[in-house]
């Protein structure tokens, strides 16, 4: 696995070096087309039995400031608000948000505010605070929506699923940059989008999107699939397994 990663990285680096070297020789049109080149060390994150989070490398070539954004598959999320009822904290209020990215991470080579104005940040929806999170109930009180929206982002951050890493994109030369994309152990499965933006003079001049997949492999995948597709057989087998284990324990320790 480790050797494979190193090999991939070398391959990427070689390709990038060739591109960087060729740039001056290309026609202006081709040059513009190749102003931003991006590659990932891996396009599949495998969740296996020993999975405790994962990390992959993103390499790219481009001149300017760089923002890397990673988005997980979208799903609806419900946020509950607790209030006190007879001394006990009870979930009373709730709001459902639609099309919420299950994972969101953003990284840049230096603090984003140093090279982008708040307006551009908001328009491009950069950063967890600027995400497009809208409630299912379109007539909800805007003040309440803001409160629930903040809570949604805060909870996601606490779970390690939303994050901002400033200064995590490092330049190896004036144009060659790299960053690490980290996935926590509770990363959702599905297709992820990796967007890389090149910024010059406060404007986004280029962007590139790469896809990667997070999925379960091996015994983890088969157990999950079996539990969901043949849930009755799974339940019966779980009981049989437990019964046999209990019987075995009794037999072993009776003799001991």
């Amino acid at each position, binding site marked *: 696995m480790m050797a494979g990663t190193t090999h991939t990285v070398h391959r990427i680096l070689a390709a990038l070096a060739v591109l960087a070297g060729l740039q001056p020789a290309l026609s202006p049109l081709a040059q513009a087309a190749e102003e931003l080149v991006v590659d990932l060390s891996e396009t599949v994150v495998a*969740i*296996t*039995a*020993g*999975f*405790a*989070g994962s990390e992959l490398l993103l390499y790219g070539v481009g001149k300017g400031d760089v923002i890397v954004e990673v988005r997980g598959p979208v*799903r*609806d*999320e*419900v*946020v*509950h*608000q*607790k*209030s006190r009822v007879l*001394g*006990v*904290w*009870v*979930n009373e209020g*709730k709001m*459902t948000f639609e099309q919420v990215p299950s994972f969101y991470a953003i990284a840049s080579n230096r603090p984003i505010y140093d090279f982008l104005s708040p307006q551009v940040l908001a328009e491009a929806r950069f950063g967890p605070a600027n995400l497009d999170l809208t409630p299912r109930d379109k007539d909800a009180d805007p003040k309440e929506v803001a409160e*629930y929206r903040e*809570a*949604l982002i*805060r*909870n*996601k951050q*606490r*779970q390690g699923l939303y994050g901002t890493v400033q200064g995590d994109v490092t330049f190896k030369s004036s144009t060659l940059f790299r960053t690490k994309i980290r996935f926590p*152990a*509770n990363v959702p499965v599905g297709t992820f989008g990796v967007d890389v933006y090149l910024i010059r003079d406060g404007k986004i001049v280029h962007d590139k999107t790469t896809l990667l997949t997070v999925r*379960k492999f091996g*015994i*983890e*995948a088969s*157990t*999950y699939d079996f*539990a*969901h597709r043949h*849930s*009755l057989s*799974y*339940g*019966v*087998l*779980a*009981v049989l*397994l*437990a*019964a046999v*284990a*209990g*019987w075995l*324990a*009794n037999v072993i*320790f*009776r003799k*001991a």
Partner: protein
Amino acid sequence: MQIYLPIAELSVNIFLILGMGGGVGFLSGLFGVGGGFLMTPLLIFIGIPPAVAVATEANQIVASSVSGVLAHWRRGNVDFKMGLVLLVGGVFGSSMGVWLFAFLRDIGHLDLVIKLSYVVFLGTIGALMFIESARAMLRTRRKAPPKRRTHNWMHGLPFKMRFRRSRLYVSAIMPLAIGFLVGLLAAIMGVGGGFVMVPAMIYLLGMPTAVVVGTSLFQIIFVTANVTVLQAVNTQTVDVVLALLLLVGAVIGAQVGVRMGTKLRGEQLRGLLALMVLGVCTKIGYDLVATPADLFSLGIVVGQ
């Protein structure tokens, strides 16, 4: 060493889970209880989603009850007829419990109901046990065996059945009702329900103490098996990897516990158990009334 749990969809330290299984197994062997009432809250404390904790613990209890019932069966301490009647009630109760569980989860009140059930039942049982054992310790000298109730209002109920092993002739309604209630609890709380079943069998049904534990274990096997299958079908929250890890620890711990248990006196054991039950109850109760760090939390979206 981390291991990824396929159904809970998170990674846990394998030694933490084995250690928890061993610790709770030790206590259950020591006190002769199932241990579900300790394990389920512990699993929730370490971050396993409550739905997964409850359903998986039911699966693990199947194993520990099978292991326990065999020993009682060999000594002839299982009243199968009584067990079957309790079981009929238990299957209905636990089926309804699983349905209620899914319903509560969908409306966002599952955690609250699980915790409230723990506070109410652990508080009541713990307090009763503590008082009883304190009394027993105070007048340990002139100890008279507890009186078996011979006749009460229960004997006026219809559908009488004869239970030869328990030397009882009582209405089937009472064991059916007890089975139903305990089944309901088992499904919602992720316990076997022995801590409710055993006192109910002794004090309400008047069964001889010798057959109580074996019979209770016998019916717990099938009630928790029913919960496991129904949870697997309805909520897909049974994590076999977690269950297996827990039961490996629990089996070993229980053996050590049983050996230690023979060295302690009965009322001291019950007193200790009562303190532990009250401790868990206090912790859960405190979490319910203490102001949480964040009043907002993420829930489960229905129909996704």
